[in-house]
């Protein structure tokens, strides 16, 4: 049944049975489609195992384990400072850009079985395989076309027509093509905030990553632009695995299939989004969901 990545662990002594697979199965078990055997639960794309992270002496992520389902949307929620963004930025090793950062544990990326945070794994490779969209739209001060082409050029794609084709495909995938097809050479900063954010999504998609990280992608946008991004995030899961950090609980409820609730650096609860929101297993989760703190 669920087999993706099993047996491809890169460290000796790691048990061949993936414990987190069962966590995902449990999360799915209450789903009638699965219980009745009509629906096969998704395989795991990335497996966070006992992950801890330190900024200097401050531990921001504490022994977190979460399975990330393949080609589904997983949301990380929790109050400010709970470590959700820190956890997200472990996936593409963004912390390596700054000194005094320290990881412990594993994030195993399937099916290749790569441990993302292993020192021997090149962060540049991980960033090419896992795209990221930031809180504030941050296009480069270049043309719309060049923003999306950047990743391709860096990868060494040379052919003009190939680049043009893949740029077009990425902009279409980001639901932006109709608005910019006639002004690809114009500066990206002429676009509205929502368009800029979709451009950043196109930029992340152009290199065909296995996974895309979203760090509160709509917090700087108006409601209409937010709705478009949410729609887009949901459509993306046909092609990539999505991990999204949001402090907007309604957003997590609308776009995600799985939700992990974090508090003070720890993972409090992970389950199907419906379950987390309608029938949370922990009192803390229930209090946060109902808006009693955070």
């Amino acid at each position: 049944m669920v087999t993706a990545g099993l047996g491809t662990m890169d460290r000796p002594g790691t048990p061949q049975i993936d414990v987190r697979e069962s966590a995902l199965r449990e999360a799915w078990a209450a789903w009638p489609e699965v219980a009745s055997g009509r629906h096969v639960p998704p395989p795991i794309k990335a497996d966070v195992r006992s992950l801890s992270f330190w900024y200097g002496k401050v531990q921001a992520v504490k022994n977190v384990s979460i399975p990330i389902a393949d080609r589904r949307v997983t949301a990380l929620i929790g109050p400010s400072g709970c470590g959700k963004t820190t956890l997200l930025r472990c996936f593409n090793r963004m912390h390596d850009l700054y000194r005094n950062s320290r990881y412990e544990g594993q994030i195993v990326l399937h099916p290749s079985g790569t441990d993302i945070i292993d020192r021997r794994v090149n962060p540049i490779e991980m960033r090419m395989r896992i795209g990221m969209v930031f809180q504030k739209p941050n296009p480069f001060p270049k043309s719309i076309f060049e923003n999306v082409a950047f990743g391709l050029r860096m990868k060494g794609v040379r052919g003009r027509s190939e680049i043009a084709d893949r740029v077009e495909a990425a902009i279409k995938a980001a639901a932006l093509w109709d608005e910019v097809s006639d002004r690809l050479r114009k500066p990206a900063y002429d676009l509205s905030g929502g368009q800029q954010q979709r451009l950043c999504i196109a930029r992340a998609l152009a290199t065909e990553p296995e996974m895309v990280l979203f760090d509160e992608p709509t917090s700087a946008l108006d409601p209409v632009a937010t709705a478009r991004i949410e729609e887009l995030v949901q459509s993306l899961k046909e092609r990539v695995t999505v991990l999204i950090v949001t402090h907007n609980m309604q957003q997590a409820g609308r776009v995600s299939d799985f939700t992990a609730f974090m508090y003070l650096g720890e993972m409090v609860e992970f389950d199907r989004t419906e379950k987390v929101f309608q029938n949370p297993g922990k009192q803390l989760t229930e209090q946060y969901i109902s808006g009693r703190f955070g």
Partner: protein
Amino acid sequence: MTPIERTIRFRRYQDAAFQVLGASLTVVALLVLGALVLDLAKTGLGRLSWSFLTSFPSRKAEQAGIASAIVGSFYVMIVTAFTAIPLGVAAGMYLEEYSRRNWFTAIIEINIANLAGVPSIVYGLMALSLFVYTFGLGESILAGGLTLALLILPIVIVATREALRSIPLHIREAAYAMGATRWQVVRHHLLPYSTGGIATGVIIALSRAIGETAPLITIGALTFIAFLPPTPLTPRPEEDGGGLYGPFEWLDSGFTVLPIQMFNWVSRPGEAFLANAAAAGIVLIVATLGLNALAIVVRNRMRRRIRW
């Protein structure tokens, strides 16, 4: 009048008083500057003519000109720019983007800050011993240009670092998150986005260098030059061996520059030479203001092109 009205009134007086003070001090500063320029123009404008610009210095004041000084300043600036820009930009880039903060870079940074404040004549003394004697460059354009390059190096480094620092963190993160290496981030993002700021700083630095006198006198730049450095790839006189001048032979030539020519004339007796000095001063001021204007234009164009 209620107490609130009274304090508001007092605070408005305060505001108005400061405005008057600031405006009048600004006017005083501008008036002094204006008077200086006006005086210079009154003394020198009469001497300014095409023949003044194209003649060599002479013992007869009315036949003397600044041809060798203009050409000398130009050549020295070329050497200065070609040395200071790559060194300064590379150093600034290294310190800002590559180096780790440790005691070694701390020492470098303190040194750069201090170098910017070292009197220029001290640079001249150091250049005299290093370039002129140790490297055997003589009192040449090359030695002069290198001396001024050292002088403005700290300015170029600081300008580069400031320009890099003004690039927001989220732009860097966006580039790194795409899987760019540090070199790719520098090459495709940081350098293009900071060009405007760097260019502005470089031009301001050059406009300072063009007016420097003391270090060049120290290394022995001549005050009386009645020839031009050999123009690359032009015929060499028969008595000098014939053929063409090499592309870099001018580097080895003796030279004078505008401020030295001025200094030379000012120190001579007679009204006529003073007029010559004032006229050369006008040319120098025009060159400096021209460079500064260019810097402003460059900065504004870059500001329009790059936004975040």
